């Protein structure tokens, strides 16, 4: 494809390329691609005029939000379009329709809509209104931003003061992955590169457990595969109990490890016969400083893995001690940053080659991930800050490859832990997820 240099807005950074390789893998399954979404369930209809105004302001301030993703040579770039895409959509429930069904149906349509990568709008804002429920739904394609960036975009839209909105994304910086990688001398980068390779080779010695029957994928034509999600919200007191148990189990090393361990145990209880030696899940860690309001767009993450052999899973105390030690060990050995040179090298591969390396255990057809995981922690968007109404609840959604077919996402909003199970039907059914959640809940509350 030939494109003039003038048309390029910006190149993808190497963490963006990492997410693009996963987009390709998701598309290979006949699914729409690597979408991430945040849903804000609102108390009432919002002030649409103000909302549209802020979205327009956002797109002017961050023109990459209007760009088209194009491949030029080996690399991908955000390029200018001839016709600017629509960013805001208002879906109004017809009077005779049932509001809650309309909400669910509309969200399912948005997350399952297939488009060519080049024509996708990097980010879309959907307002779904009905007399029963109002939801603000933001969908982005992952090379455009990471979950923290999406959180910042929501904060931007919920900031009343124009001067404060102008501060978002400032000061403009290089991608943080580039800045972090530049801190190392060339020989340190090589050491890190091999450290990461050795670490992955060690992980790959254990075959990852796949809980769900992938034969259903073969039986079902790929056009029938689609993402569904189930959102489960804990009460405030249950959330407090989970935080208390997490601290007891993994201390200050983080609640994320606790959620991961609880899901591993729940899966093992539900599918003890599933083949494999260990549960393994990748999770991203953010390179941004906490509470920073820049950078807004792009991905600024590196990856880590949590892996636990089957025999350890059975003993709750042993499992959490293991996950905690693994996490501490990874950071002590600087393996968290070791993935940066690996991701940089990967960005030079074709998407097909890169995707294979990312997903499959070395030299096999075995998927490395037992499930995907993301925890965005406590969201700081004040409930009263949304234009013209209040935010009641928040959840997030993402597409996932098959296998592992399941992505487990968590956040805390208004002091309530929200778990979002994202799964590909018909490989996994809603009934299976509901059973799984009951087991997860038992584990979380101990």
């Amino acid at each position, binding site marked *: 494809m030939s494109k003039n240099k003038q048309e390029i807005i910006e190149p993808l950074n190497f963490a963006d390329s990492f997410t693009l390789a996963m987009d390709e893998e998701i598309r290979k399954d006949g699914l729409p691609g690597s979408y991430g979404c945040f849903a804000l369930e609102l108390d009432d209809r919002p002030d649409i005029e103000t909302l549209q105004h802020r979205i327009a302001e956002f797109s002017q301030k961050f023109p990459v939000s209007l760009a088209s993703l194009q491949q030029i040579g080996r690399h991908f770039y955000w390029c200018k379009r001839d016709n600017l895409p629509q960013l805001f959509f208002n879906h109004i429930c017809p009077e005779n329709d049932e509001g809650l069904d309309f909400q669910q149906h509309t969200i399912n349509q948005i997350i399952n809509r297939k488009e060519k990568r080049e024509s996708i709008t990097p980010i879309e804002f959907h307002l779904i209104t009905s007399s029963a429920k109002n939801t603000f739904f933001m969908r982005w394609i992952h090379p455009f931003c990471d979950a923290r960036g999406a959180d910042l975009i929501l904060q931007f839209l919920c900031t009343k003061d124009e001067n404060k909105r102008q501060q978002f994304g400032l000061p403009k910086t290089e991608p943080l992955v580039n800045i972090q990688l530049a801190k190392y001398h060339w020989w340190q980068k090589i050491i890190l590169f091999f450290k990461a390779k050795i670490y992955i080779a060690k992980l790959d010695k254990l075959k990852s457990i796949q809980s769900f029957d992938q034969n259903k994928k073969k039986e079902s034509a790929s056009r029938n595969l689609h993402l569904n999600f189930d959102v489960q919200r804990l009460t405030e007191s249950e959330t407090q109990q989970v935080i208390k148990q997490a601290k007891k189990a993994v*201390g*200050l090393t983080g609640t994320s490890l606790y959620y991961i361990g609880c899901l591993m145990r729940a899966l093992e209880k539900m599918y003890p016969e599933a083949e494999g030696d260990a549960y393994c899940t990748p999770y991203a*860690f953010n390179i941004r400083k*906490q*509470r920073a309001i820049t950078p807004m767009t792009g991905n600024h993450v590196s990856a880590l893995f949590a892996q636990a052999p089957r025999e350890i899973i059975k003993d709750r105390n042993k499992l959490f001690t293991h996950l905690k030690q693994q996490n501490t060990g990874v*950071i002590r050995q600087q393996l968290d940053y070791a993935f940066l040179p690996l991701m940089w090298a990967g960005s030079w591969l074709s998407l097909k080659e890169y995707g294979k390396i990312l997903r499959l255990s070395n030299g096999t057809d075995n998927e490395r991930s037992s499930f995907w995981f993301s925890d965005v922690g406590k969201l700081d968007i004040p409930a009263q800050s949304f234009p013209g109404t209040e935010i009641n609840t928040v959840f997030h959604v993402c597409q996932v490859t098959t296998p592992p077919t399941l992505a487990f996402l968590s956040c805390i909003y208004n002091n309530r832990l929200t778990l979002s199970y994202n799964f590909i039907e018909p490989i996994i059914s809603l009934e299976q997820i509901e059973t799984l959640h009951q087991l997860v809940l038992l584990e979380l509350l101990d």
Partner: protein
Amino acid sequence: MKKILRDFIFEELIFVTEPSQFSDDENLLEAGLDSMGIMRLIMFIEDKYSITLPDTEIEPENVQSFNALEQWILKYKKG
């Protein structure tokens, strides 16, 4: 010691608008120091002061402020 800790935390881990206004007693956890940040801070301290901080002592009371951090480090620097 606090200057070294402040420089590392504000340059690498937490964004605050006015670092100079952030007191040594202010709560770092409330300011956004999270689990990954704590682990990274501990690695930095251990490397900088050639000490080992026991995992069993990674508690809020030891990491919640610059004053608390200093006390925790001194316990091992002296020993």
